[in-house]
């Protein structure tokens, strides 16, 4: 498997050939197939994909939050050399929330409505440190202050319903930071928020990344968010990696027809596009995935082998990886002639 930087000193998380299958009444759902990527310290990996692309399942697998009675998880998730998939539940509990922590999409659903915000954060502190309640409370006030809650010492005594959406998300981030994690997974952290508040939260995540020197996995469906915050991008579709590499590479020369489709179908605030080019059809059912490349039924460029063989992620000339059978000259040509023109990217 072509992994960009296996085992370099700054690599925090090294996911290798991750495959997740769910056993359901209707059959086996292959949610994630043969996925590999790395997260380094001080770096943000943006995971982009539509609903059902497997991006959230990937994050739950890393957090060890998938119920093993229903989910088969294979492959390796190496956190600083330890395979998280081999840990016992007790060992995993030590890692989860301390070394790897997570921010969820809906901050209202993730805070207990009947406990004060401060005590919920203090609970996260006490879960991994044997400190007194008052020390934990002080730490939670400090954390709330760090994430930009005004009057943190007073507001810590508030209940979640007294917080606005943006403040709740800040509180969730404070909770995720409670034990100085190494890896922070943010699953659609701004989807439920307004644009102006989204800008605040994205800035906060970026500041936290620098200040605490963590590796961030930012899961989103919004390419704009990824372009602004991520140093690396992983594009997922139908549970597989379509394209993976530095974000400048991908936004200046995407190589996969699905990535083109995403870029072309997205309206931009910069200008009114002549036409929006949608990707026809709808995302595949993972219960009954298409043969070969998962994208082939919707792909304008499909040819002979696309419906038979599954393309592997391969190293491209530009330094990023993509999984498509189109010859690379053809892809370069398409990007330069058509896609970059449609997008108005000077190249």
């Amino acid at each position, binding site marked *: 498997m072509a992994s960009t930087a296996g085992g370099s000193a700054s690599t925090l998380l090294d996911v290798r050939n991750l495959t997740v299958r769910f056993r359901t009444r209707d059959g086996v759902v292959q949610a994630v197939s043969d996925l590999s990527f790395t997260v380094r310290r001080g770096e943000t990996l943006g995971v982009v994909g539509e609903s059902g692309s497997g991006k959230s399942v990937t994050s739950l697998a890393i957090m060890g939050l998938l119920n093993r009675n229903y989910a088969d998880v294979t492959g390796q998730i190496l956190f600083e050399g330890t395979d998280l998939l081999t840990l016992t539940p007790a060992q995993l509990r030590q890692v989860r929330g301390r070394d790897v922590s997570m921010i969820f999409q809906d901050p209202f659903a993730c805070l207990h409505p009947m406990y004060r915000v401060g005590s919920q954060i203090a609970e996260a502190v006490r879960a991994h440190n044997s400190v007194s309640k008052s020390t934990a409370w002080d730490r939670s006030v400090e954390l709330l202050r760090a994430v930009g809650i005004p009057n943190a010492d007073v507001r810590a005594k508030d209940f979640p319903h007294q917080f606005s959406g943006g403040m709740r998300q800040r509180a969730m981030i404070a909770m995720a930071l409670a034990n100085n994690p190494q890896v922070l997974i943010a699953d659609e952290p701004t989807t439920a928020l307004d644009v102006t508040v989204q*800008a605040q939260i994205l800035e906060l995540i970026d500041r936290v990344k620098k200040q605490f020197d963590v590796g961030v996995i930012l899961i989103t469906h919004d390419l*704009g968010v990824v372009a602004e915050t991520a140093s690396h991008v992983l594009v997922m579709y139908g549970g597989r990696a379509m394209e993976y590499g530095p974000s400048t590479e991908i936004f200046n020369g995407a190589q996969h027809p699905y990535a083109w489709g995403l870029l072309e179908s997205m309206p931009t605030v910069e200008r009114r596009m002549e036409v929006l080019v949608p*990707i026809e059809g709808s995302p595949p059912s993972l219960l009954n995935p298409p043969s070969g490349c998962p994208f082939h039924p919707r792909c304008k460029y499909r040819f002979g082998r696309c419906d038979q063989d599954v393309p592997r992620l391969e190293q491209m000339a530009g330094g990023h990886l993509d999984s498509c059978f189109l010859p690379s000259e053809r892809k370069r040509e398409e990007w330069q002639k058509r896609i970059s023109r449609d997008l108005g990217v000077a190249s």
Partner: protein
Amino acid sequence: MTMAPSTSAEHRAGHGPLVELDHLTKNFAVKQGVFAHGKGIVHAVEDVSLTVNRGETLGIVGESGCGKSTTARLMVRLLEPTSGTIRFDGEDISTLSSRRLRPLRREMQIIFQDPYSSLNPRKSVGQIIGEPFAIHRTEKDIKSRVQELLARVGLNPEHYNRYPHEFSGGQRQRIGVARAFALRPKLIVCDEPVSALDVSVQAQILNLLKSLQAEFGLTYVFISHDLSVIRQVSDRIAVMYLGRVVEIGQSELLYEHPRHPYTAALLSAVPRPESNGSTARQRIVLSGDVPSPVDPPSACVFHPRCPRFHRGKCDVDLPPLQQFEGEHQAACHFPVERWPMTAEELASGGTAPSAAA
């Protein structure tokens, strides 16, 4: 600004505005309940005057709680205004009874945000789309009309007897479009019609709406919090904040040179792929959250968050909408001089109250 009511002759000829809102206000009373601390009034829509012209798309953009959906619901009289008037096709409909409204209902339709909850799961697609015909008794052969509609919105006419759960989100929204379009209304209010959809599917629905508009000369009021989507679909745009229209104008003028600091901040806050992660674009980050519409700030409602707030002016005088280029209007004492601007430039600018340009 007061709009002279257009003559009905003009309307019959198909010219002039389709919808005119004049000083429209909607308040909701907060009911006193077990947990409520007392009565209050939610100022959902405050003194909104705008027009929707025939055949155009008016975009209404703003953050949650800014009153954009309430405005749209007032327009189609799903709500009764507290004060002000609503004219639809030249007729004052602000206080019409529901009985009198019924014949007008077929002229105005809504496409809702959530394609999951807006379709009755117990009815087949044929029943859902056929319902408007049944209610208004306009067709004899409902089935063939529905199948025509299904084909027009890009669904298989043979799916007539299927149920909503058998369709994907995008397909369900096509059903929603077909239902709204069934009676060939004059006005369709699209309330966040693509927010719940994936990007690749979003473009399909936007293109479908556009082609229907081109073919049948429909008028749309398009509500969205997504500034990129709004730009793509709208001819004119109204930006709302805390129940008020703070800026309104032709789409291109407004995006090329926003005049209201709130619009400027909104535009700069949108993450965009063009920045390529390399060019650090100047983002104007507003502090704080949108205040509660129960107790909105005095004078200019945006002043507590405004980067160019001037004490003694913005918190005392309510800025009226003033005219700029074309039909572009903004309600600000210190409008943005040029665009783009950095956060510092925006904050330092506007030393003297400017007259209308």
